């Protein structure tokens, strides 16, 4: 394809990584839990797209496997599990927030800048195609981390954890064109099991506390 110059290829990869970051902000701004799950599924779809693009542009076939697994695990299976949990729990919205939405968005903006600042010294070493994606990946990890701290519903915390995992996966794809296959399979397995376990937990928490609001988990104090 003659029109696909390296410059344009870089632009395409950058664009789809940027979409991942955008969905991150969507999750931070969204109070409805089911919408958060949808946004997470959308983000995972973008992630799979980015991975497939990198696989196509660089001719590394094993990234296709990771992309396909992303679609199966993170776009289909985990969102379904989460939807089921939300339905059973009968909670639809995150009502109380420690930090309100505008402030959260501002903080996340700052986190993106921090991520670019941290990765500045190591970006020049990267592959030409994906080097800016590493900064975006770190930004997504940090935003996931922040969401985890600032939200109280168990389901939102779980989504935040999965967002972090997405950021890490983008980082692995961007920086190194994917980890060795055995590692990637292991990571997928861990994420899937972690999501299932957390789903079981939310059910048990609901039974024991009549709530999935983790701010009620205050029995264990000094």
């Amino acid at each position: 394809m003659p029109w696909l110059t390296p410059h344009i290829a870089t632009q395409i990869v950058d664009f789809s990584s940027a979409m991942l970051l955008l969905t991150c902000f969507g999750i931070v701004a969204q109070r409805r839990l089911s919408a958060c799950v949808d946004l997470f599924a959308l983000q995972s779809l973008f992630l799979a797209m980015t991975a497939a693009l990198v696989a196509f542009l660089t001719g590394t076939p094993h990234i296709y496997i990771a992309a396909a697994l992303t679609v199966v695990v993170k776009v289909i299976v985990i969102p379904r599990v989460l939807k089921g949990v939300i339905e059973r729990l009968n909670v639809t919205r995150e009502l109380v927030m420690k930090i309100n939405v505008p402030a959260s968005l501002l903080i996340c903006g700052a986190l993106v800048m921090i991520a670019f600042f941290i990765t500045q010294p190591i970006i020049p070493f990267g592959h030409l195609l994906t080097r800016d994606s590493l900064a975006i990946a770190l930004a997504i990890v940090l935003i996931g981390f922040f969401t985890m701290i600032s939200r109280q519903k168990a389901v939102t915390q779980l989504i935040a954890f999965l967002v972090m995992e997405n950021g890490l996966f983008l980082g692995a794809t961007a920086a190194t064109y994917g980890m060795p296959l055995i590692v990637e399979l292991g990571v997928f397995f861990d994420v899937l099991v972690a999501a299932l376990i957390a789903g079981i937990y939310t059910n048990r928490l609901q039974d024991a506390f009549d709530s999935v609001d983790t701010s009620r988990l205050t029995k264990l104090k000094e």
Partner: protein
Amino acid sequence: MTGFNANIVVGFLLLAPLTAGWLSLLINGSRWLHVINLISIGTLIGAEGFIARAVFSQGSVTAFADIVYVDALSSVILFIIGTVGLACSLYMRSYMDEQVARGVIAPKRLSLFFFLFHMFLLAMVLATVANSLGVQWVAIEGTTLATTFLIAFWRRRESLEAGWKYLILCSVGISLALFGVVLMYYSSLRVLGDVSSALNITQLQQVASQLDPHILKLAFVFLFVGYGTKVGLVPMHSWLPDAYTEAPAPVAAMLAGVLETVAVYAILRCRGIADQALSSDFTGGLLALFGLISFALAAFFILLQHNYKRLFAYSSIEHMGLAMVGFGVGGPLGTFGGLFHLINHAFAKSLAFFAAGNIHRRFRTVEIDQVRGLIAVLPWSALALLISGLALTALPPFALFASEMQIITALSSSGLPGEWSEPVTRLPVVLLLFCSVVAFAGFLYRITGMVWGPAPNDVAHGERWSMGHIPIILLGAVLAGFCFALPASLRRLIEMASTLLLSR
């Protein structure tokens, strides 16, 4: 070496917990579950013995096309997994059966308990023998997943809370470590080219000096924070006291004795690679500084505790901090002391949790104030509590005294590494000694209060002999014995491991 096939031995090492775990799910009846458990642990220890022998003669063992790599350092960790695992298995016989008899758990759930226990063992063994840093990460996350339901096993509100907190905090922490692994891979790919072995410890060690220091610095910080969460270093420790309090006693012993050690091992592995490209002052300074902070803060938290299991949990943070100081300061003495301290702490802490489990079963409370006159109520457990308490406060004649002295000597002779040493040469030593006195006073005050005094009347007196007493006596004897005579083979193993950590 003749007659040694690495693939077969390592296969046994990994297959023993795997098959035992799945078998446990199929079996009902506690007797067979315990038998399978003991066979599995026995196989594990046997395989470890063979591997250790091969390590002595060859220096290192690789198996399964370089997927598995064992050297002296991993052998030391395997030794801890095996011995503490065996002690826990013996202890579980009476402990779990009593819980079933009392109706705390349904007999069917015993299978689940053993399944999770074996998966926990498997994940830890895999984390220790994995050659690839990526596989090691997967296995350490695996330990989180296997143990979260073990911590929440009683299904009370508090245990659910502790389990959830543990799952979330450790998963998040370890995600940061994965970013470190990605960065490590990023740097090694630039040297090694696109090969699937670029994350292997054996490969990384060869090319470590050519890796880019900027990337490695960032990678090590992420790895340290991630695995440090698992070790329970301050300020990432907040899951630890809750988890140790709520977990069943044998699980708490495994968490405190073995899991923390495995996480320390992961940090040491990464450090071995990072050190060759960076100056060891950077990594050492990071380790020693966080170790010192953990040690100091935990010592003061020990004073505040009124729950004996939390007391032990904070003492874990304290001792892991001390071991970190040892590794951070480095030198032959500090490194040897650090490794020796890991072993001693694993033994002393599992002994402490066994005693705590016995006390909890009898008194039905974890409040220190409500436990009195143990020496009359449970004489053997009282003795175990005293021994572990004296050992954990590093009094002679217990082995922790020896290792703590080694670490303090190393610190006072060379000071904190790097830029931290210059302005305040003596301060860390003074701080360390002061805090250990604080911890000593707080710890002994609580424990002597529990052991002596008038026993409450509503508690049954006397202690029946059970299988659970075997590990208690053995561990107590070992703790006292190691201070005077360290078995020659173990000493050699630790020395080989510290040479590995020092060579750069």
